[in-house]
């Protein structure tokens, strides 16, 4: 059994390590022991600010700090950073192009029992419409560490999306390299490409292994950076495999599926794009695994969609 770690735990460690740079500051809105920004806070209390339950103010304070050369990371659940603070992020961070990193943890359905009010399935879509915004959604602890370093080095506003569930490490293979805006080829294949993000990368790899036994050769792309999208990887996959399936723990409207569909329809290879994700619904309370099953976000459901995609392509 491979090592499992929630991306937010890896995140907490990575941010604390980054704290050796004195320009890094962390802000949280009373959920630091959930977002794991508390790891940073323990080590660097002088550069950690708990603003209380006031996310909008947190974003503004971060903007002010960034004008002095600090690199602020602001934290809360995705619903309350990307969701609640859309307009603060849009006008006070992104429009002036300030170097602030917005972190949204507990994204997607896998929050589980807390239910629909906390299951953010819209954040990628919201953030994606903001000009100049970089959006990163790593798939495991290893990639999270790499992503934290990369967005800290990048100058400009970023949104980092993290989940709550513990995930198997799949990016520790030889040759894996994290570069902002560059999709990672997780598995080569020629019949169809699954473009996945976050915890659906693991599901995609499992589905690909199953389908391989059935004679379907599946390429798997890990699109950890949703914006700027690696259009080249998307279009190449469209050209070479002829059909695409996207997979994300997000509404199929506005998220990775939309981004991929937009890219291929204005390319010379406007192939079919099947979008696996939340089908424009709210979530509900429940065990995370049960929710993934219920809303069709498992490897077996994904396999079924891929079979249909390949089958339809043949017609």
């Amino acid at each position: 059994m491979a090592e499992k770690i929630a991306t937010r735990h890896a995140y907490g460690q990575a941010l604390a390590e980054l704290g050796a740079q004195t320009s890094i500051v962390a802000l949280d809105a009373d959920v630091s022991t959930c977002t794991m920004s508390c790891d940073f806070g323990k080590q660097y209390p002088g550069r950690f600010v708990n603003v209380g339950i006031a996310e909008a103010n947190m974003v503004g304070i971060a903007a002010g700090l960034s004008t002095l050369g600090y690199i602020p990371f602001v934290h809360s659940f995705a619903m309350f950073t990307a969701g609640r603070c859309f307009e603060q992020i849009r006008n006070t961070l992104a429009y002036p192009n300030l170097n602030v990193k917005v972190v949204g943890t507990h994204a997607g359905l896998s929050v589980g029992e807390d239910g629909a009010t906390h299951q953010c399935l819209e954040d990628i879509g919201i953030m994606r419409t903001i000009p100049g915004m970089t959006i990163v959604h790593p798939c495991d602890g290893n990639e999270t560490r790499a992503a934290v370093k990369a967005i800290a080095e990048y100058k400009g506003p970023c949104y980092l999306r993290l989940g709550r569930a513990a995930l198997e490490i799949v990016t520790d293979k030889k040759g894996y390299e994290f570069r902002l805006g560059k999709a990672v080829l997780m598995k080569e294949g020629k019949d169809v490409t699954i473009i996945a993000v976050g915890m659906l990368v693991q599901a995609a790899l499992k589905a690909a292994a199953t389908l391989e036994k059935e004679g379907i050769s599946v390429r798997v792309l890990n699109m950890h950076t949703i914006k700027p999208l690696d259009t080249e990887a998307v279009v190449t996959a469209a050209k070479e495999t002829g059909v695409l399936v996207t997979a994300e723990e997000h509404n199929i409207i506005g998220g990775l599926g939309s981004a991929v569909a937009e890219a291929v329809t204005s390319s010379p290879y406007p192939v079919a794009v099947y979008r696996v994700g939340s089908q424009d619904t709210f979530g509900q309370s429940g065990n995370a695994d049960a929710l993934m099953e219920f809303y069709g976000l498992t490897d077996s459901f994904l396999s079924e969609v891929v079979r249909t995609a390949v089958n339809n392509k043949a017609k």
Partner: protein
Amino acid sequence: MDSERTSELQLIAQDLRILGLEMVREAKSGHIGGAFSLSEIMATLYFEKMNIDPGRPDWEDRDRLVMSKGHATVALYPTLAKRGFFPIDRLKQFRKIGGHLSGHAEMNYVAGVDMSTGSLGQGFSVAVGMALGAKMAHKKFRVFAILGDGEIQEGQIWEAAMFAAAASLDNLVAILDYNKVQLDGTVAEVQNSGPPQDKFAGFGFNVITIDGHSIQEIADAIDAAAICIGKPTIIIANTVKGKGVSFMEGKSAWHGKTPSDELFDLAFAELKEQRTKLEAIHG
């Protein structure tokens, strides 16, 4: 401050009104009312009290000002131009495509603007962040934030106020442009929230109430804020919206409306007449 300097600043304030009105006439749009209520405050800050250097707009030890009521560019841009951050002639680009002298305050294209603002309620948090950063970095500069009395209806203002007091940001000076008029009507008509003094005092602020058109009172309040230790200060500046133009004074209609040519002429005549009188006093 001696009376000669006071009258000098009064004259500068009047020039800011005239420049602002010219800017709006050229652009055929802009917010006059809530800019003219700020003229004396802007003159006192930028020409007397703030530690700034127009030759080095990004000087890291400078005092900062966040125009949280970001529509008051008709006060901010003329002030920065007259103070030497950019040529006065550039004011002709106000609100024009490609001119980058945006309708609301714009930091990346206009030297001297410390923060882009325009969405009400957000700038104050940014000022709080700047003041917090100054404390973290052991810097001595001060941060000023200008708030509108309509703007403080936004909840985020009170999130920021709560934080500023809890963090003992005594390097932060908020100035409330208490002109008692907002876009849709008077503040009392739209959302009567009562006097702001008690609210800010309740949140832990050092509260100073002044006549916002008295240079001496503005200067004294800014000095008094500097010696208040452990608390942020708010200066509640009683002002008149549209100050200086008789038909605009206290009228919500002049929040963002562009006057007709006849009314522009009338407004200029009034402002210039007042300027002549001030000049006579100044000698």
